[in-house]
């Protein structure tokens, strides 16, 4: 299988879906000739024209609202939100309008749109360009939330998102745009709500999202060299969440760490940990541990920024603690 970058994978997904369905269009800032600052969309405007790859003014609430109305009337917009940090600007249109329209209309109106945006720190972009804000969106009923962890997922989840009749928000990891992974030439879709078990193990379960899947994989390697067998799971979508796969693993290993790049407090790790605690409590030998990003605005200085995000070493260290029963004393 060929290897392509996450960037190419997203580009292919969009191109394929735009060829398949002419109601699909892309809207956002500098998406056309510039192909976005990350160059993810390069070439699409050449194939699909400026009617379907639409450069907007710097008006996130405006083009998000426009997309909601477009989606309600027969198109499938893919909203390009340049940085995940700008999600605050579109919250009203996304959460008061897109998320609720189907429900408030008693099922009469649909809002089939995708917001593609990103997450992830350590790019030295400081507090307003480094946030991982998927927890905010996951809290709002009516929105689906996908967190691709590689080029393979990025393509398959994007295609599914575009065909979904509900609003979907996809957060890509901006540090992963140039990372390559095997991606089939043939068309494929990844269904929502199906977690991926990347590595089987028997001693401990590491649940990682997006950028943190790699971190968990590397932590598992470290642990393996010490004789600890870690299972690594990527939920791929957090709404819907594949509880079954997570619970099965938790019951098998009896120890779980949930790793995510959003701020830890009031973030998604609490939800995932709680569901496991609630439904696999009597199988657990230790509390489900959570590792999110530090509860601080993301600092610019490299000396500070790097320590705000979970690392393989940090995850492995926590795993060792869980294994050793050290938590018992803490608790």
């Amino acid at each position, binding site marked *: 299988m060929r290897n392509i970058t996450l960037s190419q994978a997203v580009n292919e997904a969009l191109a394929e879906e735009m060829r398949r369905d002419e*109601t699909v*269009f892309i809207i956002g800032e500098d998406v056309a000739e510039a192909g976005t600052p990350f160059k993810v969309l390069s070439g699409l405007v050449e194939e699909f024209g400026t*009617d*379907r790859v639409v450069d*907007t*003014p710097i*008006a996130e*609430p*405006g*083009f*998000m*609202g*426009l*997309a*909601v*109305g*477009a*989606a*309600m*009337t*027969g*198109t499938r*917009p893919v909203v390009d939100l340049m940085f995940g940090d700008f999600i605050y600007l579109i919250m*009203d*249109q996304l959460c*008061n*309008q897109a998320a609720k*329209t*189907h*429900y*408030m*209309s*008693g*099922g*009469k*109106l*649909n809002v089939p749109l995708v917001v593609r945006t990103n997450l992830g720190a350590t790019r030295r972009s400081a507090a307003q360009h480094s946030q991982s804000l998927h927890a905010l969106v996951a809290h709002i*009923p*009516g929105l*689906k939330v996908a967190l691709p962890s590689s080029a393979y997922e990025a393509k398959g989840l994007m295609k599914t998102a575009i065909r*979904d*009749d*509900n609003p979907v928000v996809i957060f890509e990891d901006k540090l992963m745009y140039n990372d390559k992974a095997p991606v089939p030439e043939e068309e494929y879709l990844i269904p929502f709500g199906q977690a991926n078990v990347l590595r089987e193990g028997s001693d401990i379960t590491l649940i990682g999202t997006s950028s943190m899947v790699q971190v968990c994989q590397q932590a598992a390697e470290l642990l393996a060299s010490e004789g600890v067998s870690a299972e690594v799971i990527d939920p791929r979508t957090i709404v819907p969440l594949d509880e079954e796969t997570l619970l099965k693993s938790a019951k098998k290993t009896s120890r779980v760490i949930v790793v995510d790049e959003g701020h830890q407090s009031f973030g998604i790790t609490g939800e995932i940990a709680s569901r496991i605690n609630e439904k696999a409590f009597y199988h657990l030998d230790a509390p489900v541990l959570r590792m999110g990003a530090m509860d601080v605005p993301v600092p610019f200085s490299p000396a500070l920024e790097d320590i705000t995000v979970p690392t393989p070493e940090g995850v492995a260290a926590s795993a060792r603690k869980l294994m050793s029963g050290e938590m018992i004393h803490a608790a």
Partner: protein
Amino acid sequence: MSPAKKTSNTEDYLRMYRQMVRIRTFEDNANQLYLSAKMPGLTHMYSGEEAVAVGICEALEVTDKITSTHRGHGHCVAKGAAFKEMFCELLGKEEGYCRGKGGSMHIADQSNGNLGANAIVGGSMGIATGSAFTAKLLGRDDVTVCFFGDGATAQGLMYEVMNMAALWKLPVIYACENNGYSEYTATDEIAAGSIPARAEAFGIEAHSVNGQDVLAVNQLTQDLVARARKGEGPFFMELMTYRYHGHHVGDINREYYRRKDEERDWKDNKDPITLFGAYLTKEGIATKENLAEMQAAIEADAAAAVEYALAAKYPDTSEVDMHVFTDVKHALA
């Protein structure tokens, strides 16, 4: 009152009159339901502004779209909705247009191109613009009218989407219902400069029109809709009008922000139904008796619909987690 176009308009005129009376009657009944504690929650009355919704919607086809507001019953009726489903919605019943899930602030007859009332002031401006975007992208010729109040002109979203509509020549008409107040505050206390000039600054042709004159509203809208269909949009209309009731049905003591004689003046001298009724009789299009009969029939209709809605059943509790997602029957199952 503008001059009659031609007598072949008789039917149109009578339909407009009828629709205005239907709105007024709907609102009177809604208010009564509130006062008698039969309606859950609050609601915002459209009474006094009928010529705006009717003048505009009568210039539209079924395929044309509108977006509506928290004060949305008038738009809903004018775009073709039926009393029964509307009262059912108002009372939270299963047969309501939104299966009781929306209520007054989200009421809409979606099949007639009403994209929904909206409880976020200005919240539908993006939606209306997006609807116009669809028309352009898919090569359809429908036009979208975005209703909103004077208060909503304070929302930044309006300027964001007007900019895009102007850049891309979208077939959308922004219809500002300037009723002089937003909640308990007079418009001049919250709107600096000139409202139509704000649209013009974005290169959008803007018009101010007497919103109590249904023919003037209708004529202007017909012109703008025709031009918007040809790609000459967007347009902006400011419709000068007045709401008779308080901000919502519970806003009874309102003298601290609005004088009683001002209210009386509008009701006595600028009522859109009275004015248009007088015109119709003067022009010989209808007799007073015709109009009275029409009104009586509408009132009977409304009474029957209210009765039906009161007796209708609530949605089954199993509906509570339906329609969260299109593809999941019960989101919490």
